[in-house]
């Protein structure tokens, strides 16, 4: 769980970095997307790196979901009778919403792939996309409800990462003292804010017109 989670964090960090290229303009962004596909050539075939990454991600998603389902089922089995009254005193909202937050993310990712990678959901009806991801991106976020969907997803992502980062460090046994635990918590905040915030910049900027075609 922790390993797949950390892998995701690595991926979204990289992905966010890539997205921010949108600020550098159409060319740089498309160049970057193109470059991704050529990375490792000629040692790897075209899109080789991308596929390695995709396979890695798919495996991670499977592992991650399998773990999540297992934990969920164990938890449900461990408390078949619920409390009439139960208060939360030591936990964060994020830690309690990991499961439904994760499901939300899963739904979002499917949506997102349809949107950007498979290019099935396209607000501009296939005019952009494919060779011009930049155009697709701007078209997408020029649509207000798309932006809202993305922003909501980023809230879910931020929450998931806030706890997930800390949790994975704790699960891997790196938080053996009060100090290191506080540090892991801080890391959780930073990762959540940087990633969710970083991702949000692009759609917001498109919406207010800082980024345009």
């Amino acid at each position: 769980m922790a390993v797949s989670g950390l892998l995701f964090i690595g991926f979204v960090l990289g992905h966010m970095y890539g997205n921010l290229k949108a600020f550098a303009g159409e060319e740089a962004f498309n160049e970057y997307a193109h470059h991704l596909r050529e990375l490792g050539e000629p040692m790897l075939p075209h899109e080789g790196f991308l596929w390695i990454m995709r396979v890695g991600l798919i495996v991670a998603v499977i592992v991650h979901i399998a773990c999540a389902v297992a934990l969920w089922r164990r938890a449900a089995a461990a408390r078949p009778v619920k409390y009439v009254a139960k208060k939360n005193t030591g936990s964060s909202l994020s830690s309690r919403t990991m499961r439904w937050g994760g499901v939300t993310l899963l739904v979002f990712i499917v949506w997102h792939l349809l949107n950007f990678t498979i290019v099935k959901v396209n607000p501009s009806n296939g005019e952009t996309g494919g060779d011009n991801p930049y155009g697709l991106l701007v078209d997408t976020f020029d649509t207000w409800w798309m932006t809202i969907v993305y922003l909501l997803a980023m809230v879910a992502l931020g929450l998931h990462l806030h706890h997930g980062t800390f949790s994975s460090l704790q699960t891997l046994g790196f938080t053996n003292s009060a100090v290191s635990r506080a540090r892991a918590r801080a890391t959780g905040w930073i990762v959540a804010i940087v990633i969710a915030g970083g991702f949000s910049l692009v759609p917001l900027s498109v919406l207010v017109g800082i980024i345009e075609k």
Partner: protein
Amino acid sequence: MNLTLKIWRQSGPDDKGGIHTYQVSGISQDMSFLEMLDVLNEQLNEKGEEPVAFDSDCREGICGMCSLMINGEAHGPEVTTTCQLHMRSFNDGDTITIEPWRAEPFPVIKDLVVDRSAFDRIIQSGGFVSANTGSAPEANSVPAPRDKAMRAFNVATCIGCGACVAACPNGSASLFVGAKITHLGELPQGQPERWTRVVDMVGQHDHEGFGGCTNIGECAAACPKEIPLDVISQLNKDLRTALANGH
């Protein structure tokens, strides 16, 4: 003080059980929570109703026998055991909901009493140092660094009450197991069995039906002995090391 108590009553393991409402009066601020229940029981006895069963023994916060989920908090609103919780933490006219610990491995025996023998079985699986009587070397022949000994002590104060399980949304006993792993793992005497211990204890924990830990942290907040979350991290670390070394 006058109070309304909503108490889980269940006549036996097979009964379905449910919440019953009682009124108690004449409660003083200086009473402990359990003494308040004693008063209720005395009143029930007079009325010919069977008293509410609940566990307690030392009534000074050290044996771990008392339990109770009070208004949704394990051992109630203070960081202490139920027997050391006093009625001055409540107000006249309050309604208090009292439930047993809820976890599949802690089945209800009657009313508010649950069976926590799963904890004993977890200790049996490895929560000890194998040192037969009479075979011990001179106590000072192996010094134990003071900071490690202090950490061992801090977590050895676990009273085995089960509040961590009761509070954990996953029904996990990781704090309890982590406390023992850390206690014995910090001392030189605990080293020889360190890696098998963690594998065996975690195995037994899972086998008993406790949930997995997702680091939510309700357990440490509920723990009357303030066992910190780092014991769970220590548990994970030891487990990772043990598995990596083929234990």
